[in-house]
Every structure is written in C-alpha cells, then in structure tokens.
C-alpha cells in the first residue's frame, strides 16, 4: 500500500517538477510548483513527518508560492507569451544534469547506508519542539535573526529611491 502511494506521489512530484522548469508560461510554472510542493508534503507523511508536512503546506505553499505569484503578477510583461523561457544553455545543461543524476544514483546505490530499523517516535511534534529548544536552540535563534534580516533587507531593497519629489 505504502509503496503504491509513494510511487504515485513520486511520479506526480517528478512530473510537476519537470513542468515547473519547462513551462512556457511562468504562471503555469508557479502552479505546477504548488502541485509539486503538495506532493512532497504527502511524501513527508509517508516518512512519518506529519508536523513537517503541515509546515510545508502552510509555509511553502501558503506563503512562498503566494509571494512568487505576487512577484509574477507585478513583473508581468504585456507581450511576453511569445518569449521563449529557456536560454541557450539547454544542451550542455541537459548533459551535465544527466551525468550528475547518473552519478548520484550510482553513489546512493553503492553506499552502504547504516540503516536502523527502529520506529519513529509517535509524538514527533513534541519531540521536534523539544529538540528545537534544547539541542538545536542556537540554530533556532540564528534562523530567527536570518528571517528578520531577510524581511528588513527585502523592504530596504525594494523601497523607491527618491523620497522628495517622487
């Protein structure tokens, strides 16, 4: 059962991701991105990370994708439908990516992962919360600062230049 679900979600995610990077219309790209993110949330559930799935949907889909769509709308050019979306580097990029993919697969297959067969704790939300406040408290605080800086930065960057006169 799980396997079947996994393959289903995996295929959706892969195809959507493919469409994200190859869609002619950037808006379509964004929508396919939403689909991909949703699929990945499903994957997270399969992996027993329910909290993470929730966070994924809320933040990634709910905020980031909205942000992207906003940006698309704001930078929308009237007659951009005929402009091709891929640059001249397609061929070498394809090549190298395929090589990379082959290498990755080869690596992950050949490495003997130290797998453990223990079960995940059922109260993983609890545990994540605890971990955030104990073992990973410093990264947690730093991340907060990063978010703050990013917000301020984004505001400063996109402020209009001239105050007087306009």
């Amino acid at each position, binding site marked *: 059962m799980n396997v079947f679900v996994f393959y289903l979600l995996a295929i959706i*995610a892969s195809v959507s991701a493919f469409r994200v*990077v190859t869609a002619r219309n950037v808006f379509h790209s964004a929508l396919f991105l939403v689909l991909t993110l949703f699929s990945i949330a499903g994957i997270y559930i399969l992996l027993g990370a329910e909290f993470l799935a929730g966070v994924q949907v809320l933040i990634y889909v709910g905020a980031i994708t909205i*942000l992207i769509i906003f*940006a698309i709308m704001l930078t929308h050019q009237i007659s951009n439908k005929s402009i091709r979306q891929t640059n001249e*580097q397609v061929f070498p990029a*394809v090549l190298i990516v395929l090589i990379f993919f082959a290498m990755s697969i080869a690596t992950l297959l050949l490495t003997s992962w130290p797998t*453990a067969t223990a079960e995940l704790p059922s109260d993983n939300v609890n545990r994540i919360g605890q*971990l955030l406040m104990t073992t990973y408290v410093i990264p947690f605080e730093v991340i907060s600062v990063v978010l703050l800086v990013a917000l301020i930065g984004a505001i400063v*960057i*996109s402020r209009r230049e001239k105050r007087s006169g306009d």
Partner: protein
Amino acid sequence: MEQLSLYHFLALGAVLFALGIFGLLTRRNAIGVLMAIELLFNAAAINFVAFAKFVDPQGLGGQVFAVFIITVAAAEAAVGLAIVMLIYRNFRGIEVDKINFMKW
C-alpha cells in the same frame, strides 16, 4: 511488493535535485530560476527526512533540519523576489540573460 526503503526516497530526492539544477541553469525568467531553487531546497529536505526515518529514528534531527531548510527558503525567496522587483523596476524585463552588464 517491496518494502519502502531509503533508496526510494533518495532516488526521488536525486530526481528533484537534478530537475532543480536544470531549471537553475536553463530558465530565462528570474522568477523561474527562483522556483527551480525551491525545488532544490525541497529535494534536500526530502533527503534529510528520509535519513531521519531510516538512519536515526530516535534522533529526529533530520526533521528539525528540514524545518530550518523551509525557513531559510522563505527568507531567501523574500529577498530574491525583492531583488527581482528592483530589477524589473530598472530594466523593465527580468530575463536573466539580458542582465549581463558585468562582462567584458
């Protein structure tokens, strides 16, 4: 039917990562590039979570890290899009290959 194993998830992560790289190298629209970068983040997160489940179930470090990844992705998207707005404001177009002023 086979059991779900680590390899499946890692393979999926590899696929998504490869696609993300492809998009990063290929898309003309700046926002398209940013979206490809989001794919990269997600692929990495999948890997982390997969490792959390199959390698160190008690530690859950992977899942915590995935949270961090998402946070960073958000910050990065915010700043990146702000820059794209600025570029749009100045050049009226956001084709990446047209923004090549620091060249020979």
